[in-house]
């Protein structure tokens, strides 16, 4: 266990130390990158472990944000309570939707989750009097904490704390018997059923855990931006996160985290070019599928094989490719 937890904690400490070194702009960018990294990592449990490709997971990210935003701005609730409310709302919707969604497989599952996400997006854009429509909800007050969260470095530190804790919890869960059973369901649901596992129940668990992770990061994101809009429920965000999982290497957890964070930084770098973002995403997807089928996570193995192969050829042996 220590072998898995230690790198996560060490990385958390390094990231926390950066708060005193980086200028404000970079801290803000890194805050969001970490949120999207964590979000992608949570989705990897569903996509990489259970092998269910969801194109609607922005729904749980956005719903939690909207829930918290409405509670703070309309009901003048304490921001912490509002965050709890937002996450609970998202969790509740996931619990209600999951039993239906997990009946579908492959492309049908992708379509059902996409359609479901569109309903939430439609509500957010059309129900203008309640959700602010396209304008969203501005003025979300950040909560009070041990340190000042209105300071960029302060909010960044909170994010590092939550992402580190969330990653530790997820990594630990993934290695547990319940986590391994999700891999089993993705690998052979027939074998799982024959061993006595309730396959639909396990799929539901994966769906809800991924939704919960999305909800936590969606809430953090809403408070970070002090704003929530329909962009947080947009299917293009779902696509970006699903792509992060694939480009990162599904099932590895750390790969999707890096890709999730990296894709956000890339998106932020294309300021003024946002119209082209879907095109860039598409090109990246094609490139990664063609040149790096296992995603970022396969790089270490490929590197080892490459080095081993070179050593063998240089020593005069044949058959360098394993």
């Amino acid at each position, binding site marked *: 266990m220590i072998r898995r937890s230690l790198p996560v904690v060490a990385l958390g400490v390094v990231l926390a130390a950066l708060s005193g070194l980086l200028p404000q702009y970079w801290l803000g960018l890194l805050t969001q990158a970490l949120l999207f990294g964590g979000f992608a990592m949570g989705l990897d449990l569903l996509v990489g472990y259970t092998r269910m490709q969801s194109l609607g997971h922005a729904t749980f990210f956005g719903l939690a944000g909207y829930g918290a935003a409405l509670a703070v701005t309309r009901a003048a609730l304490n921001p912490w309570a509002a965050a709890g409310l937002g996450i609970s709302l998202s969790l509740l919707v996931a619990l209600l939707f999951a039993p239906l969604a997990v009946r579908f497989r492959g492309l049908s599952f992708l379509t059902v989750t996409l359609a479901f996400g569109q309903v939430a997006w439609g509500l957010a854009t059309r129900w203008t009097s309640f959700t602010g429509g396209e304008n969203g909800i501005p003025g979300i007050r950040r909560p009070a904490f041990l340190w000042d969260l209105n300071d960029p470095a302060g909010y960044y530190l909170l994010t590092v704390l939550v992402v580190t804790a969330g990653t530790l919890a997820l990594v*630990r869960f993934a290695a547990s018997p319940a986590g391994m059973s999700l891999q089993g369901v993705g690998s052979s649901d027939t*074998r799982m059923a*024959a061993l006595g596992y309730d396959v639909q129940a396990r799929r539901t668990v994966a769906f809800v855990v991924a939704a919960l992770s999305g909800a936590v990061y969606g809430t953090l994101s809403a408070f970070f931006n002090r704003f929530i809009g329909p962009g947080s429920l947009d299917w293009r965000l779902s696509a970006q996160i699903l792509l992060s999982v694939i480009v990162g290497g599904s099932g590895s957890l750390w790969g999707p985290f890096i890709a999730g964070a990296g894709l956000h930084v890339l998106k932020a770098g294309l300021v003024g070019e946002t119209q082209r973002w879907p095109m860039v995403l598409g090109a990246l997807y094609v490139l990664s599928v063609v040149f790096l089928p296992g995603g970022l996570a396969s790089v270490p193995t490929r590197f080892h094989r490459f080095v081993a192969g070179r050593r063998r050829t240089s020593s005069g042996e044949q058959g360098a490719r394993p």
Partner: protein
Amino acid sequence: MTEVDLRALEIQDLTVHFGGLAALSGVQMTVQAGSRHGILGANGAGKTTLFNVVSGFIAPTRGRVWLFGDEVTHLPPHRRARLGLARTFQITTLFLDLTALENVLMASLVSAGHHRRVVHPARHDRIARPMAERCLNDLGLGHLMDVPVGEVGYGEQRLLEIAVTSALAPRLLLLDEPTAGLSAAETVAVLDLVRRLPPELTVIIIEHDLEVLFQVAEHLTVLHFGEPIADGPAWSVREDPVVKEVYLGSRG
């Protein structure tokens, strides 16, 4: 009461239609606890369909199934597994991207009752890990512990599937053509393994080769186009004129 307890499996009037095709019609069968029961039949005789109905993967058109005295006709596969039923498949069904240890762990975690745990790592489970290692070592597969099953040879995969089912500590084991596609030496190894299974375990084996079945089964049921044409002790079924006619006769 005791009589009920002695029956591992009971099947009454079992019929399965796939569209217009009758895969099984009117099958009656009783398997006593602790026996080694063989199911013989040519391709398409309905053997695998019978296993699929018994393990819950196919719902019968008509008829009822009991496991250890409990009616299970309408139970899903995982509930039947929890009653002590384990099975292998005609096409090896394992987690190809997981290691041999993880494959067996998936089963031993269930028998340890730890399969719902969410914190402690599965690989270090204090009950399931030693159980899984014992299963692998017993079958001489200890060297494969950390090898992804997809990279293991076909013969060892067949053995591994039996290791996975035995880690469930089942009361009734269904083996679907365990020697199919194996070399002569591998067949001997598998049959040897079947003979070494604990005597209190009830085993039902599907085979299309009577000679193979005769080595391990003491009781035989012969299926022919979905209908049982003989049922009884192995020696008597072997001498049965109808069986000789429709089954052995075709071999000359």
